[in-house]
């Protein structure tokens, strides 16, 4: 049988999903009689003092079971995920929970929320980066009512002094080479300040959890949260002080995540209510709550200055970045380091100074969103590289080819790059959309322009993945894993790896996934790591089972195990009087009377286990340098042709080519699916998606009427969406594979920005590039032309 790696195997979950038979967490409500329902009462103000909270009337409503508030004893809210902290004295963003109700029906819970009387005193609020770093800024946590300081980390390499604002809550600095000296030598300099909008990932299934109270005091939870072991179970055991044996987390099909479900906010609150009331409870967020009560992404402000020689060689990058992280109290997670990592993997930058920080605001606490801040961090760099090309009169492709890191070189941190296919990616997309040629202007007031960009994203060497595999006595394979299936097809890829190892068709592999009582440990699917981490663990588990099976077969035939080869149902024996045996026939039947049941027995599988952890980082020095800050890097390039309406400022993507360096793809169709999905997600947030605020600092477009997700009409027609795969094998990935889903979104925004410039001559400095913004820039340009 030939290899299954690189084959377009159909998704193993597709049948369940096209028939509607596959259960999502939000489909479990019907299965529980006597289910209780939760509903949250949320602050309407971005920043307010709670003067009085009266729940008495709500408590008296018939059918109300329990109302939790921020002052219930015995709860250390600081241990909760940020969006799950119930406010006590002060609300820090519009949407923070002030009381949490459970009731016999959803209607009663909703009525109870209406009956809760909360008396607020509005406080000044900080809604964006610029307000947060004003000379005399309002503080995100009012000093008079400060109960939970925002915290400041002092990790090595952090900038622990020079805090210009109380709202700067973490920082990271690195300096490779000598940027000042290099800037002196530079023959051309481009610089600018860039911004990005605040957005919500909005997987279509809203966050939800059902927590069953079990008769032994334990809990069983079904939720669409990510990381059954590493995120949800560990979180619940630690924060709610539960025995590990008494917490079981099950992840049915997930209706998307894009990073946003890596934060167990709803799970914590549902488990807490379940334990307080000893009832099986259901908490289903509405779409509005996904905007105001679930984590957003973190926007970034960057100030970038590139110094280059006349031939286009970039010799210095002076780089400032601020992550705007919302109301993340007691921040220990953000320092600017995650986002600014995007400045490292792509270009050589022999001299790179990074000064990054995290800024708190009175907006919904931020958390992971596809790309971990890299699309935001690299936007400015890519825009400036395009400007540099324009300024020098050389092609944007050529200037990139000159500066992109080659395999075997070290990046600015000092890390060895072992896999980079980015030049091939860039070549392939610009072969399809020729950015060096002018498009025909044949659309009237719609002006066309082309642009390209590239992007790279680190993989964080965190986590531990385990896998268990059974070779059943009939030769069928069972695989047990706990990686998340957000929709990307990870389970299919894992089944493909197992099928490949055992040399069976993929239909002979059954995957059991995401149940902490059954499937082995995995942290979570984040940082595009599943193919690499879980993939390696599955490969190890298969090798372990195969090695045990070889031993068993070898014993029967008096051979050394090395003389046995397993090919699906067959064992090939070297040097024996028998050349080939049918493995299932070696499993002895057992009956209730049989004795001495050693060896291969019917019904008792041969089991293998695999564990994979990437090598840890080497702590960076006082300059932020180390030969291992991250793990490997994924890359993508994009080229676009856009049309801009000169009269309205509206931007349309007419044609797009995107390429991914995936390492060797396990399943090219799944990779293609990720490319197309990434394109579409990036078109959405580059052109349209962002939070808008009302006078109270509340998100005013917290619904799909006013926050428009990209529809099919925002995508180019099918013949104008091009996906290319340009693998550079990752030496330590399974079969040379690596992850890829995050990098796709990075180059799309800056490529569109360049297309807009070529079309109408205006340089955008941030996204979303809405019609209003583009029109304002066009008007500004025309006004300047008139003055001249």
């Amino acid at each position, binding site marked *: 049988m030939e290899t299954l790696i690189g084959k377009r195997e159909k998704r193993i979950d597709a049948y369940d999903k096209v028939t509607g038979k596959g259960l999502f967490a939000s489909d479990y409500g019907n299965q529980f009689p006597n289910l209780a329902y939760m509903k949250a009462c949320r602050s309407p103000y971005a920043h307010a003092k709670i003067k009085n909270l009266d729940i008495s009337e709500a408590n008296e409503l018939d059918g109300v079971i329990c109302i939790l508030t921020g002052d219930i004893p015995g709860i250390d809210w600081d241990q909760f995920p940020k969006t799950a902290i119930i406010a006590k004295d002060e609300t820090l963003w519009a949407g923070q929970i002030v009381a949490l109700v459970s009731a016999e029906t959803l209607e009663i819970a909703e009525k109870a929320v209406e009956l809760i009387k909360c008396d607020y005193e509005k406080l000044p609020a900080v809604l964006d980066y610029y307000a947060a770093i004003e000379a005399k800024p309002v503080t995100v946590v009012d000093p008079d009512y400060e109960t939970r300081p925002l915290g400041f980390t002092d990790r090595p390499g952090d900038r622990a002094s020079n805090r210009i604002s109380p709202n700067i809550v973490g920082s990271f600095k690195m300096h490779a080479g000598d940027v000042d000296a290099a800037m002196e030598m530079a023959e051309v300099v481009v610089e600018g300040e860039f911004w990005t909008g605040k957005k919500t990932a909005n997987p279509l299934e809203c966050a939800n959890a059902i927590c069953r109270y079990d008769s032994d005091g334990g809990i069983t939870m079904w939720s669409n949260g990510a990381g059954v072991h590493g995120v949800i179970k560990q979180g619940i055991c630690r924060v709610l002080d539960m025995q590990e044996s008494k917490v079981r987390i099950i992840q049915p099909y997930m209706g998307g995540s894009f990073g946003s479900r890596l934060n167990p906010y709803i799970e914590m609150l549902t488990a807490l209510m379940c334990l307080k009331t000893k009832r099986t409870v259901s908490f289903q967020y509405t779409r509005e709550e996904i905007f105001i009560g679930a984590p957003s992404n973190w926007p970034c402000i960057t100030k970038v200055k590139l110094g280059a020689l006349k031939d286009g060689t970039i010799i210095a990058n002076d780089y400032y970045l601020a992550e705007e992280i919302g109301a993340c109290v007691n921040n220990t997670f953000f320092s600017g380091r995650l986002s600014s990592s995007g400045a490292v993997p792509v270009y050589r930058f022999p001299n790179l100074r990074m000064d990054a920080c995290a800024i708190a605001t009175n907006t919904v606490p931020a958390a992971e969103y596809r790309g971990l801040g890299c699309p935001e961090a690299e936007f400015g760099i890519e825009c400036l590289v395009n400007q540099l090309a324009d300024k020098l009169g050389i092609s944007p492709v050529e200037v990139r080819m000159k500066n992109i890191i080659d395999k075997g070189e070290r990046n600015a941190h000092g890390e060895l790059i072992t896999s980079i296919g980015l030049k091939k990616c860039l070549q392939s997309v610009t072969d399809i959309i020729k950015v060096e040629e002018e498009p025909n202007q044949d659309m009237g007031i719609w002006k066309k322009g082309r642009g390209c960009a590239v992007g790279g994203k680190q993989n964080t060497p965190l986590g531990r993945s385990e896998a268990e595999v059974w070779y059943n006595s009939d030769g069928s394979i069972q695989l047990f894993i706990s990686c998340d299936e957000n*929709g990307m097809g990870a389970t299919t890829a894992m089944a493909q790896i197992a099928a490949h190892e055992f040399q069976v068709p993929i239909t002979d592999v059954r995957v059991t996934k995401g149940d902490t009582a059954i499937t082995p440990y995995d942290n979570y699917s984040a940082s595009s790591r599943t193919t690499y981490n879980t993939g390696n663990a599955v490969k190890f588990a298969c090798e372990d089972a195969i090695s045990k099976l070889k031993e068993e077969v070898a014993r029967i035939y008096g051979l050394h195990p090395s003389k046995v080869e397993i090919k699906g149902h067959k064992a090939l024996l070297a040097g024996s009087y028998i050349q080939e045996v049918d493995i299932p026939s070696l499993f002895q039947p057992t009956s209730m009377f049989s004795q001495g049941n050693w060896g291969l027995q019917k019904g008792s599988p041969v089991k293998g286990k695999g564990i994979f952890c990437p090598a840890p980082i080497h702590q960076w020095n006082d300059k932020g340098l180390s030969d291992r800050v991250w793990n490997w890097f994924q890359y993508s390039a994009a080229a676009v042709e856009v049309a801009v309406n000169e009269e309205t400022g509206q931007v349309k993507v007419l044609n797009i080519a995107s390429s991914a360096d995936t390492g060797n793809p396990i399943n090219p169709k799944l990779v293609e699916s990720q490319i197309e*999905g990434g394109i579409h997600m990036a078109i959405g947030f580059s052109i349209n998606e962002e939070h808008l605020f009302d006078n109270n600092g509340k998100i005013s477009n917290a619904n799909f009427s006013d926050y428009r997700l990209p529809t099919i009409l925002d995508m180019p027609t099918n013949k104008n969406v091009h996906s290319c795969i340009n693998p550079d094998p990752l030496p330590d990935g399974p079969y040379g594979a690596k992850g890829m889903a995050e990098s796709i979104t990075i180059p799309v925004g800056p490529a569109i920005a360049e297309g807009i410039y070529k079309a109408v001559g205006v340089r955008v400095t941030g996204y979303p590039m809405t019609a209003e913004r583009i029109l304002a820039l066009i008007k500004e340009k025309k006004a300047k032309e008139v003055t001249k």
Partner: protein
Amino acid sequence: MDIEKIKINITVNGRRHTLCVSPDRTLLEILREELNLIGTKKGCDDSNCGVCTVLMDGMAVKSCTILIPQANEHVITTIEGLEREKSLHPLQQSFIDHFAVQCGFCTPAMILTAKAILDENPNATEDDIREGLHGNVCRCTGYKKIVEAIEAVRDGEYKEICGEV
């Protein structure tokens, strides 16, 4: 807060149901909560995501904004009603074959909308398909493979009976 219940007759996937329900409930709630047809999903409350799409008298409608009295005496098809005896609907098989499925949360609604598009116009062009699908949001796929799956059915690449159930 209690509203007087009313009698509703609806035919869902070929079966006639008589229900006594509160008239302020939506078709989506009745399908999911009373009839256990959970293939119809909920993603928002204002008919902008489309994952709740079902067919009402053959037309694609968003069941989250149909109050149950509006569905009285109407014929509803949900994803559960699409399979033929021992066979997938051609659109279902084509969605599998063309990788038009990722997380799967929008998939039942996409397939039903696709059916309505092709039932109305068996020769629907790509533009017609795009126009018909623009009320159905998918966050994962970028839509390309969904259009490919629908076009394959339009082009007769699938027989009426396809794929074992």
